[in-house]
């Protein structure tokens, strides 16, 4: 890992937002050859991926993952206010928590995606019926669902069925504790992908985008 990414990651893990901001400015200003060797997007994605992998290996904690994502989101929205706005480009994405008030996972994934320049709608907590309506109304192509409870995870199967019945076939990307304890659960509930940690959402979304050139034919 390049030392600028390493320094940024360490600033995030130490919750040092001042140092993190300094490093982002180094990259923006290409202050050193090393800082010029990465884009801001790479800086954040690589740092957050490494932090996410660290969480999987118990080297990094959930609190650090959340606070790191929050620092990235705050800095990026401060330095580039336009990234929070809908650009009209890219897939239509939404994120939600299904049947639950445990919102932390959604908040982390949202922060990481925004920090990587994606726009997404935040549906908060929804149920299956509300979600089908909103996916239809907003033309959602990638739906990210965070759950904590097993029954909420199992309800995604009902959601997929209801979406299909409504003639909708968005990509469903899922995450949360039940999917960590049962690695095949995402297939059982009809999701297209799951991540081991929040930063995986960026790679998954990029992967979907790379395979989909004609979004209108998918939905």
């Amino acid at each position: 890992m390049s030392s600028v990414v390493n320094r940024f990651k360490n600033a995030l893990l130490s919750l040092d937002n001042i140092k993190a901001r300094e490093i982002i400015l180094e990259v923006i200003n290409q202050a050193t050859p090393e800082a010029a060797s990465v884009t801001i997007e790479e800086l954040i994605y690589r740092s957050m991926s490494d932090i996410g992998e660290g969480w999987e290996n118990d080297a990094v904690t959930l609190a650090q993952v959340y606070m790191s994502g929050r620092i990235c989101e705050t800095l990026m929205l401060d330095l580039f206010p336009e990234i929070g706005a809908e650009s009209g480009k890219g897939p239509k994405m939404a994120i939600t928590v299904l049947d639950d008030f445990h919102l932390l996972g959604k908040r982390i994934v949202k922060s990481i995606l925004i920090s990587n320049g994606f726009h997404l709608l935040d549906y908060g907590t929804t149920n299956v019926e509300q979600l089908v309506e909103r996916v239809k109304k907003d033309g959602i192509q990638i739906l990210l669902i965070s759950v904590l409870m097993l029954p909420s995870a199992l309800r995604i199967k009902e959601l997929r069925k209801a979406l299909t019945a409504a003639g909708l076939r968005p990509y469903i990307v899922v995450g949360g504790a039940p999917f960590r304890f049962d690695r095949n659960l995402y297939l059982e509930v009809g999701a297209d992908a799951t991540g081991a940690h929040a930063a995986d959402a960026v790679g998954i979304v990029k992967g979907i985008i790379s395979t989909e050139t004609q979004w209108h034919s998918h939905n």
Partner: protein
Amino acid sequence: MAQPQLTSMQRVLTTLSHKEPDRVPLFLLLTMHGAKELGISIKEYFSKAEYVVEGQLRMLKKYRHDCLYNFYYAPLEVEAWGADVIFREDCPPNSGAPFIRKADQIKSLRPPSVKGSRVLQKTLESGRSLKAAVGDTVPIIGVVMSPFSLPVMQMGFDKYLELIFEEPALFERLMEVNEAFCIEWANAQLASGVTAIVYFDPVSSSSIIPRETFMRTGFNVARRVIPRIKGPVAMHFASERCLPMADVLPDTGALAVGVSSMECLAALKKAYGGKMALVGNLNGIEMRTWNAAAATNAVRDAIAKGGAGGGFILSDNHGEIPWQVPEQTLLAISEAAHTLGRYPLAIADNNAA
């Protein structure tokens, strides 16, 4: 030579003293399954103490395990603080929207009165009835949310993490209020007849907060609270990891620790052996898909890694078995625990060093 059969209480006390009883004790930490026994909804089941008592006693008989679990649902305590609880037909009752919406509210926060809370009194009533039913033959397990983890339901996880790292004075004030409540609630349960308290503290897990933060927050809270609980206490991290905390957790005064399926039981046994008994670590999420053979294999593996020398209670890794786990799986787990868990153990961990 095989030992004479002990009561569940004797079995558990023996293993908690790090000696081998007649067999590995089994705690099936069942809550909602009592509603299935009575043929009523989860919401109705938890509406009356008598239903919980009947459900627990029927499950004790059916599954031949070693405890009664006087735990209703995780948001019971925040319900006493005035929060909403959301009931669904197939999952544990869930906490509604957080009732601390702004951190400033913490300044004037007051804990609820245990005596004045209908839901807490209902739990004490079932504790008394269970004690009357089994006396000292079966341990009755009560539950508290740790003062350090309760704020996840009080104010939401994201806002709580921000409070821990950015508002130390308000954090300390919240701990002060929650600690007073936790101690009163735990001791009221013990006075009702409950034998031991499970102190659920997932936020303290090494998966959730950095060690240095834990040492100045959750650890200090546990060290202040647990010694003031007038009975045995087990710390539980609700499926999250605790292996890296083995060097300090015994200093809290807790006698046992609930361990995760994400960590190797043999490594946990080595780290905690002789200092804290282990409770775990069957994977509750996978359990719903197990057939009898899978259940037997999981039990065999856990006993082989954790059973030697006592200091081990076979249980699930979360502290609550999902509603989706069928009766036949629970019966298979129980049967395997009774046959494979008999001391001296006939099975050993093949992977042990």
